[in-house]
């Protein structure tokens, strides 16, 4: 069984989407995991053909304005055109939200599910990760502990679903259009502290750019009050 792990972040390196795929990969057993990147607005024909050879596709991407980032949406349209529409390839999604509530990723997962319908793939379910903006700053602790624990648990369940559906076989997967319900989780870190940490982060970035904290609220020339 071959599983394509698709990083849909516009960032080639150091993305939270990449961290989530790495975490998932650690739980994927009995499957060959192949990594792909969709970082720009086109999915080349060769890449689309390679993805059609996989048994399962896992898309990991950041939530952009309540949906799928524009460049990835464009890639999905390319992949729909190139889809073989007959193999029963299963598709899973991991959406990383800057907001604390993972449920805010629900519409983005629905877009991916709707895409499956059009492209002839089988929707397998997804995970909406809340508080994902801070993943890089959150140390990985031993399993079952630390702020990333709820996310790891959800990814483990997703990995189990990916592997078990392979055992069940394609026909059964096609009979059950959605194999598992979407899971919505948040980091195990108090919401008010997450909010505070984000605010401190923006001020540090602003200072690093040579500005002052109050500049964060600047209304540029031409903008209204």
């Amino acid at each position, binding site marked *: 069984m071959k599983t394509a792990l698709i990083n849909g972040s516009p960032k080639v390196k150091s993305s939270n989407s990449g961290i989530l795929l790495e975490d998932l990969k650690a739980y994927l057993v009995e499957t060959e995991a192949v990594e792909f990147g969709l970082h720009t607005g086109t999915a080349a024909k060769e890449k689309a053909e390679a993805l059609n050879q996989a048994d399962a596709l896992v898309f990991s991407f950041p939530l952009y304005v309540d949906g799928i980032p524009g460049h990835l*949406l464009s890639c999905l*349209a390319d992949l729909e055109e190139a889809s073989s529409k007959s193999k029963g390839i299963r598709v899973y999604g991991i959406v990383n939200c800057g907001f604390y509530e993972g449920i805010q990723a629900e519409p983005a997962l629905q877009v991916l599910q709707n*895409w499956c319908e059009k492209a002839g793939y089988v929707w397998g379910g997804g995970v909406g990760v809340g508080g994902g903006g801070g993943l890089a700053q959150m140390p990985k602790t031993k399993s079952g502990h630390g702020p990333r624990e709820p996310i790891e648990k959800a990814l483990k369940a997703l990995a189990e679903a990916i592997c078990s559906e392979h055992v069940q076989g394609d026909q059964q997967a096609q009979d059950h259009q959605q194999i598992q319900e979407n899971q919505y989780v948040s980091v195990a870190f108090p919401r008010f502290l997450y909010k505070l940490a*984000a605010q401190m982060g923006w001020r540090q970035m602003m200072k690093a750019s040579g500005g002052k904290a109050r500049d964060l609220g600047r209304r540029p020339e031409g903008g209204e009050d």
Partner: protein
Amino acid sequence: MKLIITDLENFKVPVEGDYKIIQPQGNIRNCIGCFGCWTRTPGRCVIHDGYENTGIDMSKCTELIFVSRCYYGSVSPFVKTVQDRAISYIHPDFVMRRGEMHHKRRYSNVIQLSAYYYGETVTDAEKETARKILQANADNYDGRVKNIYFYKSAEELEGIRI
């Protein structure tokens, strides 16, 4: 002022009143997630390709109108990329609204959002997703949903007035 964001290069839909339109003119570059529009040049995207001022345009509008082909319940890649490049309309800091985390306002205008979708094969599930996304956009811009419509083709839209 109405701000219209559309993927139609040849926009023939009659519009009532004052408006500005953002439509495909040359290549648009996608958001790269650098947050420069919040921390380097607050209010303006750092990519200079003609699409860097949408956040400012949004601050001047009373209505934001998407006229777009429906892609799986989303606006089209072009319209979505314009939206992705315009998060500077809001402030990076978080606030709580109705029990959920959203972004603080940068400006005081309250936007009414409408979407005019077109496409021959838009499914009921896609329509449901589109409704959810427009409401989520309104929540995040701290605005209101005005209307959402679905048409079979872009030509059909020429017979209406927005």
